[in-house]
Structure formats: structure tokens, C-alpha cells
């Protein structure tokens, strides 16, 4: 990141309240410190041992029945910001980061909200309204047909969308009454089946059809936009390695994307952000089909968990840019000034057991040793001595590696994952290392079904005989009872070896 010379002051912002916790609170605090700004963070008693409390100048205790409820208490948070004289609130991600009413409240209190205007948050936060908006702009949406529009021609319009096709209840949800149709001959029967299921499950037999994207990739574009009408992209990210719709591995650039296709995706994202009058850092997400077709998924109007990969290849500090934009500064560079160097990959470290369907894990953090090494960045929200409880999100932080090319980034990140030591609470670090080591990942053959498709190959191998011996010998020799037994055995018995009581 830039920062060798002293960065220019930001007019109107001297003190920032971080309305978040964990790794992102630490991450935002790091930039505030570099910029010479005063920092404050909300800290619930359950988080008092966490690193965020130590990363800021001022700790602001928050109250609430649960830590999550406290972090969602807009009134309390605005009151704290007012009391401590914060000029701006950085919401991080999650909690109130995409809550338009909160943004309104903050601005009404005369405090800058580090994010876009409330109307844009509201538009992009509404799945249907944002799709309609993108459609009006001529943006790419999954081809779809609704029976409501004209029931008589529904089957014909569905056929014209092309196959495979998903036929589902308009009123539907939860996968009920959903039919995948792979060829025209099967369409009539699928409509009939979907209709009877729709009638039974929802009491509403109207149907909806859309193109079904098989083996899709998740590709998104980092946007940076100021209030003076400048909209830039900072490249794309591939976030296809997911489990249960949550991203686990993210990288930039997206592997194997043809230059022409990449340019079209970046252009679309910039047009959508520009049309929405966007300001702040933001992300436009797309689904990319194997044939190169891509469709708008949603726009996130905040800093993304995976922003560090973009920072590593562009050398920009996105939190600094967010603050400058919030202060009303124009972007200090144009699109052609943005340079992309090398390749960066991020892995999300979660307190969970990949061997037990990724069930969340809890436990005391007896030892936390982040990895070091060239090109490695640790964004961790945990500290030794803390306990991981079920009260918060299982994501403990991220390990990110930058390399001259993808292979180097993979090698550095695998090494960093092996060197990241978290003892006392089960995490997914070695599972992530196996994901990066999988030949399909190495070849850039990623898609959102990767984790399910390769579940068997990614499972932890049972420790071999030598590893068992190493682990058991270490455990035994460090056990006080065992040591005493070793020392206490009288010589005649000791010499026998396998003595018994």
C-alpha cells in the first residue's frame, strides 16, 4: 500500500467511529492510524479481549442483550458518535453497513456516513427493484419470462429463453415447485408438474421461467466513485469457491477470463454504478456462465470482505479512498492511472469444522500465530486468550497472498495457511490449503459447485502412522502425569519396559 510519504489530510474528518468489530474494525483502524486520524470503535463486553479494542485510540462500550443486537442498535451508535465528537462513521461490512435508515440517521446528526447516499443503499438492497433498475439501463439480467405478463404465450416465451431452463412458482421460494428443463420436449410436462406443486405449496399456480446457469462462476467488479461523477473500476475478482452461498476463497484477476469478456464485464459494472449515481467503494456482482454469458446478481454498497486482494494488486488503500470520497474529495487519479500488478488470493479463516459439514466451532484461543513471509498479509480479528463463542460470525479473519503470477500467489498462500497456527478452536485452515492444492483450482477450473463436487478430495486424510506417532509422543511427553510416571518408576521394574500394575 502507498504511504511512504505522509498522506494529505482529509478536510472535515479528524475522528472516525468504527461501527463494527473483529477483523474489519482492526483493518479500518490501521488506515486511520496511517492517516493520522483519531479512531474509536464500538466494543461489546463479550469482545473486550478482542484486538479491535487495542487497535483504536478510544473504546466505546455498547450495550445490548446480545453483541449482535448491540451492533444493530442504530440509536445507541449515533448517540455514541455524537458524544465522542466523531466526524464520520465507518460501518465496515454487515451489521448496519447497508441499512439506509441508519445512513439517514447518521447524516441527520451531522455526521458523515462512509458509504453512498441512503437512496442508493435502498435501491440496491432491494432484489427486485435493483434488477428492474439494471434492466432499464439495458444491463445483463438472466433471461426470464413471467406467466403473469401474458399467460397464453408463457410456454412459447419460456422456450425462446433457451435451455437449460428453470421453471418455478412465481410465489415460490425454498426450491419448492422448481423444475430444471434441459430440452424443449420436456417443457410441457415440467410446466404441468411445477404448476401442481405451486398450487399445492403456495395456493398460487402462476409460474416464472428463467435461464438456468449450470456450473456458474461468481465474478464481481470493484468500483470506486466520488460525488463529482467520476466512476472507476479496480478490476474484477473471482469468488467462485463458496459453501452454502458464502465465499471462502477470492482472487484477482479472475483466472482464465478472455480479455474481451473481462472488458465487457468491467464496462457493465461501471455503467450500472454510474447510472445509480453511486459514490463510495462498491461491488457489482455477476454470475458468469461457462459460455461467457454473464448476468447481474446484485450490487453491494459497502467495503467487501475480499477487498484486500484488490488492494494488493492495485497498491491502493480502499478505506482511505472511502474516507476521501465521504469527505467530498474528487478521486485523485483516473482509470488509466490504475495499475494492476501480479495476482492476489484471499482465504477466509472460519471457526468451523469442514469435516462435519462446516459446523461452527467454538473454543478458547490458546495460541494464535499468524503466518509471515513475502507477499503475505494477515487481516485477523482474533487475539490469543480470547474465546470464540457462538455469539458472532464464525469468520475469524483472512490470510491474503500476493505473487508475481497466480502460481506464486497460490504457493505463498498455501505456505501461509500451513504456518497459520490457531490452537484451541477448530478452523478451516488446512481444508483451505487443500482447496488451493487441488489440481482443478491450480488450473483455474473454478465454479460455485467446486466445494460440493470435490468434497471427497478435500476431506482431511487420516493422519498416517508416522504423524500419529509424532503427535502422540508430543502429547504424552508434555503431559505432567506421564512425565511423573516416567520419573517415578523404580529401576528393577523400569528395566522391564512393559510393566503393569
Amino acid at each position: 500500500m502507498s504511504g511512504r510519504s505522509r498522506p494529505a489530510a482529509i478536510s472535515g474528518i479528524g475522528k472516525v467511529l468504527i461501527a463494527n468489530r473483529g477483523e474489519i474494525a482492526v483493518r479500518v483502524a490501521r488506515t486511520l492510524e496511517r492517516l493520522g486520524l483519531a479512531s474509536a470503535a464500538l466494543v461489546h463486553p463479550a469482545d473486550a479481549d478482542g484486538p479491535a479494542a487495542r487497535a483504536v485510540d478510544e473504546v466505546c462500550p455498547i450495550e445490548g442483550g446480545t453483541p449482535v443486537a448491540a451492533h444493530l442498535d442504530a440509536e445507541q451508535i449515533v448517540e455514541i458518535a455524537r458524544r465522542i465528537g466523531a466526524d464520520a462513521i465507518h460501518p465496515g461490512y454487515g451489521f448496519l453497513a447497508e441499512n439506509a435508515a441508519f445512513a439517514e440517521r447518521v447524516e441527520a446528526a451531522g455526521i458523515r456516513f462512509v458509504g453512498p447516499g441512503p437512496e442508493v443503499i435502498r435501491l440496491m438492497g432491494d432484489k427486485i427493484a435493483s434488477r428492474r433498475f439494471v434492466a432499464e439501463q439495458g444491463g445483463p439480467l438472466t433471461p426470464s419470462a413471467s406467466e403473469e405478463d401474458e399467460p397464453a404465450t408463457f410456454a412459447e416465451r419460456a422456450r425462446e429463453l433457451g435451455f437449460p431452463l428453470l421453471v418455478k412458482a412465481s410465489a415460490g421460494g425454498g426450491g419448492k415447485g422448481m423444475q430444471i428443463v434441459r430440452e424443449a420436449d420436456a417443457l410441457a410436462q415440467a410446466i404441468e408438474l411445477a404448476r401442481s406443486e405451486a398450487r399445492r405449496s403456495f395456493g398460487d399456480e402462476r409460474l416464472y421461467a428463467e435461464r438456468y446457469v449450470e456450473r456458474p462462476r461468481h465474478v464481481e467488479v470493484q468500483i470506486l466513485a466520488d460525488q463529482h461523477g467520476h466512476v472507476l473500476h479496480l478490476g474484477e475478482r473471482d469468488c467462485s469457491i463458496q459453501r452454502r452461498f458464502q465465499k471462502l476463497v477470492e482472487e484477482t484477476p479472475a483466472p482464465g477470463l478472455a480479455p474481451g469478456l473481462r472488458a465487457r464485464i468491467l464496462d457493465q459494472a461501471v455503467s450500472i454504478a454510474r447510472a445509480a449515481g453511486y459514490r463510495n467503494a462498491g461491488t457489482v456482482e455477476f454470475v458468469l456462465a461457462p459460455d461467457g454469458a454473464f448476468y447481474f446478481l446484485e450490487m453491494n454498497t459497502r467495503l467487501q470482505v475480499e477487498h484486500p486482494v484488490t488492494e494488493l494488486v492495485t497498491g491502493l488503500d480502499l478505506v482511505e479512498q472511502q474516507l476521501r470520497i465521504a469527505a467530498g474529495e474528487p478521486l485523485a487519479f483516473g482509470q488509466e492511472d490504475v495499475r494492476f500488478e501480479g495476482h492476489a488470493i484471499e482465504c477466509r479463516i472460519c471457526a468451523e469444522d469442514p469435516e462435519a459439514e462446516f459446523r461452527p466451532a467454538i473454543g478458547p484461543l490458546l495460541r494464535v500465530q499468524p503466518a509471515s513471509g513475502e507477499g503475505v498479509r494477515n487481516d485477523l480479528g482474533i487475539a490469543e486468550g480470547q474465546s470464540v463463542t457462538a455469539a458472532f460470525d464464525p469468520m475469524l479473519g483472512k490470510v491474503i497472498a500476493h505473487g508475481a503470477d497466480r502460481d506464486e500467489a497460490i504457493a505463498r498462500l498455501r505456505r501461509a495457511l500451513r504456518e497459520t497456527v490457531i490452537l484451541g478452536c477448530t478452523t478451516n485452515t488446512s481444508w483451505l490449503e487443500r482447496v488451493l492444492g487441488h489440481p482443478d483450482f491450480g488450473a483455474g477450473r473454478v465454479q460455485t459447485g467446486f466445494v460440493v463436487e470435490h468434497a471427497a478430495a478435500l476431506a482431511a486424510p487420516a493422519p498416517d502412522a508416522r504423524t500419529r506417532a509424532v503427535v502422540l509422543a508430543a502429547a504424552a511427553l508434555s503431559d505432567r502425569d506421564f512425565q511423573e510416571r516416567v520419573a517415578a518408576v523404580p529401576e528393577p521394574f523400569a528395566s522391564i519396559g512393559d510393566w503393569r500394575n
Partner: protein
Amino acid sequence: MGYEFELDGHVATVWPVHGREDASLSIDGVSHAADLLAQAAGRFELELDGQMYAIQMARHGDDVFVHVEGRVHRVRVVDALARARRDAAPEGAAEILRAPMPGVVIAVDVLAGAVVETGERLMTIESMKLQTLIRAPHAARIAEVLAGPGASFDQGDPLLRLAPVGDAEEGSR
């Protein structure tokens, strides 16, 4: 009696070996020369049969966490006394209700000493953002509440101890 350690679902017996130059312990009957050297806090070097391994290790109760060659292994020290007690527990004695998954206690609906009917609500827990009720599996007396409101627990942790209805230890009223 040897020392029992559980690793990856298998229990191994480890014996100290005395008076031999070439071995210091045996694991499931196989002798090894092993020497553990403490380095900085939490860091060790293990020499096993002439090879060196860099190890990071921490212990919590009966759980030993060993990081070696990029992976963490959890070893459980099997406490011989507890095992004997468990094996000897008679039918119909105290019974422990355990957490079905990790979570937090939201509310406790009974007090120790209370007599409850089958299906009666004992505790509300929250796991993975879902609230679940812990109900009495059968008529019983609550011998002990092992986790209070706000307490977090791991899967399998004890939540409540039940005793037979007629069992009135230390004067339940």
C-alpha cells in the same frame, strides 16, 4: 496401566519405556526414541527416531492441540479415573443432557430440584441463529443446571443433569 490418548477417533496406549538407550516410549506396542525440547512459549522441538519436528502445542483441560507439518491435531487425554467411573455408572443413575450443536443458552426454564414431565421445556438455546428448545426426554428430577443464561457451549457439552424422579439427593423440596 498405560496412558490413553485419543486421536482422530482412535485410542492409543502410550507406555513409558525405561532403561533402554534406543527407546523412551512405546505407542500401541511400537517402541520409539522420543525427546521433547521446549523452545519459546508454546514452541517445541520433538526428536522422534532421529528426525526433528517443529511443533506448536497448547493444552486446555484434557485436550492437547498439536500443530505439526501445517496441520492441527486434537488429542484427548483419556482420564483413567473418569473412564472407570463412567463404565461403572449403574442403570437409572444421573443422566446428562448434552448440547446437540454449539450455541448459547438463551433461557433456563427450570430450577435444580424441579420434577418435570416428559416433553416439558427445560432450556432455550440458540445455535446457528436458530432457537431450539431442550425438552425432558422422560419424567425426571433436575439434579443440576450445568449452563446458565448467556453461557456458550460446544457440541456435546453438558447442559443439564437429570436424576430419577424418586431420587431425592440432598433434600429436594
